[in-house]
């Protein structure tokens, strides 16, 4: 009796362990409701498209990928959903998360459980700065954003304006959560390292309904170049209120979701946003020679969701997910250490992915080849203008 039970159990165990016709489950953990839902959903779509593409090509190691969705609506729920995905659903790895705060919370759960976590979109330093073993990040970070925005200012914008970058007065404003704060910190450090003159550095809460006093302060201090790291409402508010106060700095360089989105431009007016710069993930108006596979991605996106991609978040999540999934296909299997070994072997060169940047995990499992690009709003469209190899058109100076 006991023996038959044991044998049956063993047989079932074998059946379950057998790879043929089985699915491999991965977690998709993004904020898909609540205040971060817009870009969370946009990011999740990138992962879905990568999975669709890999599945259509036969899956990984002969198995079909099934994505199990989790909703990281706030930090508590992010950890709760990570726990559910790992212990109830039994996912082999988690992909996510768009929001830095959410991944920082959720990855503590996955790290303890020894489940690999691939971050494809969150930018805060602390995500990979904590020395976790099972957390990898493919996307560019706050450090890239800070460095790339100051470089674009010093190397391209200031010369274009006919100014010595050291003569420009720089104002750094940022929403005061960990995202804006870390980007602003890197901008400040890079500006100082380049001998630039930062005259104001000020944070504000992202859910503010009035930025007029900040605009007045910038104007009083004669700030020539404003660097803003922001979400959407505060980007709209700042651009509208500076325009209405008659404050026209020589350049505004935005960073992050708010500045890269078409609804932002539509809300503030195309004439108001004309000439505004933006440093962010790779967007769509980019030199396609530098981003092979981008056209295919946009086609797949339109076919599945019926609209154009709403921001570059989907693209960057797609690129990161695809590189990781392809590495898993080439790897040994889906045990945590096999996954880690497989992704540590990744060596994808710059200029060969749809986002332009390559992938190679360096210190702290951060993709050391990740970088951002510089864009400018021209005639109501966000076009890539920096670096030159990826630019589709020249920068426009003077309004």
């Amino acid at each position, binding site marked *: 009796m006991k023996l038959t039970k044991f044998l049956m159990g063993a047989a079932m165990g074998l059946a379950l362990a057998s790879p043929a016709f089985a699915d491999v489950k991965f977690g998709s953990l993004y904020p898909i*409701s*609540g*205040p971060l*839902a*817009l*870009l969370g*959903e946009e990011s999740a779509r990138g992962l879905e498209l990568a999975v669709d593409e890999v599945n259509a090509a036969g899956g990984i190691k002969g198995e079909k990928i099934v994505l199990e969705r989790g909703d990281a609506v706030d930090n508590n729920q992010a950890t709760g959903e990570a726990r559910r995905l790992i212990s109830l659903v039994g996912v082999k790895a988690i992909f996510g998360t768009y929001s830095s705060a959410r991944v920082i919370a959720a990855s503590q759960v996955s790290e303890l459980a020894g489940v690999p976590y691939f971050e494809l979109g969150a930018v805060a330093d602390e995500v990979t700065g904590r020395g976790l073993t099972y957390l990898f990040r493919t996307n560019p970070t706050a450090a890239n954003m800070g460095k790339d925005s100051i470089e674009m200012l010093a190397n391209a914008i200031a010369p274009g304006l006919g100014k010595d970058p050291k003569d420009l007065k720089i104002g750094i*404003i940022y929403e*005061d959560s960990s995202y804006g704060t870390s980007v602003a910190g890197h901008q400040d450090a890079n500006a100082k390292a380049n001998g630039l003159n930062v005259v104001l550095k*000020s*944070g*504000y*809460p992202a*859910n*503010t*309904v*009035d*930025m*007029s*006093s*900040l605009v*007045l*302060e910038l104007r*009083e201090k004669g700030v020539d170049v404003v660097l803003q790291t922001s979400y*959407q*409402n505060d980007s*709209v*508010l700042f651009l*509208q209120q500076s325009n*209405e*106060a*008659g404050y026209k700095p020589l350049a505004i360089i935005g960073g992050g979701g708010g500045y890269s989105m078409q*609804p*932002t431009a*539509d*809300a503030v007016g195309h004439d108001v946003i004309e000439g505004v710069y933006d440093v962010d993930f790779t967007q769509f108006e980019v030199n396609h020679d530098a981003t092979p596979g981008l056209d295919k991605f946009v086609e797949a996106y339109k076919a599945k969701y019926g609209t154009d991609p*709403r921001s570059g978040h989907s693209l960057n999540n797609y690129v990161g997910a695809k590189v990781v999934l392809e590495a898993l296909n080439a790897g040994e299997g889906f045990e945590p250490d096999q996954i880690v070994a497989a992704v540590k072997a990744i060596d994808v060169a710059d200029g060969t992915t749809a986002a332009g940047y390559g992938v190679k995990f360096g210190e702290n499992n951060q993709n050391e080849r990740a970088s951002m690009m510089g864009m400018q709003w021209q005639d109501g469209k966000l076009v890539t203008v920096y670096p030159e190899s990826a630019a589709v058109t020249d920068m426009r100076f003077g309004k």
Partner: protein
Amino acid sequence: MTTFLQVLLNGLMLGGLFAIVAIGLTLIFGIVKVVNFAHGEFLMAGMFVTWLITTRLGLHPYASVIIVVPMMFLLGALTQRLLIQPLMSAEDDHVQIFATVGLSTAMINLALLIFGADIANTPNFGLRTPIEIGPVRVLTGQLYIFIAAIILVIALQLFLKNSQTGRAIRAVAQHRVAAELMGVNVPRIYILSFGLGAACVGLAAVLIAPLYPTSSNIGTYFVLTAFVVVVLGGLGSIPGAFFGALVIGLVDSLSGFYIGSDLREAVVFGIFLLILILKPSGLFGKRMTLSHLS
């Protein structure tokens, strides 16, 4: 000097904005004695409807007031009748508060479901045009909000003081049981008052929609400040809410400029705490709350 005047004016306009959102909240609290945590979401709903009417029918956003205000009245009345009233007899008052918290979450996610997470941009029909008053500038839309807030405060005061229904409302606010004994239909007054409070926020929504992009979480941007304003002004006091809003607006604007944007919330809440310590009933708490108007 010009800058100081501009900062001051910005503060007043911001105060007007907070006031128009807070009036409905204090009205509901003063009469029904329910803290409506879904107040911000009522605002959000009104703004989405304004956006729909303005973009689909091409009307001036202010024209949508004829639809939005009655619609919000209905929404408020239904909330009272279907959600709050059944809980009125609950042993613990907190049940009603949690019900409104639930309503708030449900409304945010319903909006997310219907409208998606994109911002909805109501055409502003020139309401974001700066006009110059001497050396300072103000947006036409902001000015209208400020004026509307004053008119709303006066109109509500007149209605509550002089009309038969207004007297009944005040009677219920003063003493629910006594009013019932005098033949006032208390549940009806509650439904009416909740509807009235929601209609006020409907008016606020119509005025705010052309100035701020609407999104499912726009209510959360306003509602915390609205609570501060209501408590500062004295719970249930309509003029109190107005002047409390002006105080908060001015403090916000002045501290944002002279102390720094990153510290302005600290200053606003610091002053809020200070006033409460010195005068726990709020600025207008003693004399002029609805329950003491006679």
